[in-house]
């Protein structure tokens, strides 16, 4: 099956990013495809390369970058990003900033959309 993942919450503050990551890992292990990951609302904060958590904690941005570098399309909503101070200058590698239309397109072209939010 082919999944689109929508993430609506910021890292660490909310478990949505962790749950989404675990879901994606499990889906890939079972041979499913991830059509794309779309970050919206505070979810866009997952994409800042300035993230620097304590060393004994998971590094949420690096997890996304690793998935992006494996070829999964990771899109940060531009409208939500502008509100929250995310721009090309601080965007982590392996992801791209684009419009909300990408979310609709991902939804149309995947078998399932799974939302992680509150």
């Amino acid at each position, binding site marked *: 099956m082919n999944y689109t993942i929508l993430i609506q919450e910021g890292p660490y503050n909310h478990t949505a990013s962790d749950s989404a990551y675990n879901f994606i890992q499990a889906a890939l292990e079972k041979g499913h495809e991830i059509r794309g990951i779309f970050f919206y609302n505070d979810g866009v904060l997952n994409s800042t390369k300035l993230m620097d958590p304590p060393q004994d904690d998971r590094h949420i941005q690096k997890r996304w970058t690793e998935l992006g570098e494996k070829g999964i399309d990771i899109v940060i909503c531009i409208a939500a990003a502008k509100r929250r101070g995310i721009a090309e200058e601080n965007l982590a590698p392996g992801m791209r900033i684009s419009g*909300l*239309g990408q979310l*609709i397109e991902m939804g149309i072209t995947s078998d399932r959309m799974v939302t992680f939010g509150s």
Partner: protein
Amino acid sequence: MSEEEQPTKIMFVMRKPPHGSIYAYEGLEVILISAAYEQDVSVMFMGDGVLALKKGQDTTELGIKGFAKTYGVLEGYDIEKIYVDKLSLEERGLTEDDLVIDVEVLEPAKINEMMNEQHVLMPF
């Protein structure tokens, strides 16, 4: 028409109150964008989400730009399937007359049925 050419059924499920968080507003932005894709779009207001449609909202003292009027443009975007959960309205002491736009009020069983028919359910 082949199966691939059928419009995709996309339902936005608006669950959050209009003020106190940005979900209702950013959700509305997605709804407006979706109109450009000519799919089978519907919007379901339920829970505190129904409060977003309440007439007479004044956000002046909150210092936040109100957006209740924006729901009025949905029709112009050809988004005409706008539904409200009957139970959520009743629980909040509201009727259809209290809302800023025309909606179709549905029983929970009907909502369940419609949600099962969707290809994409996007909650806000």
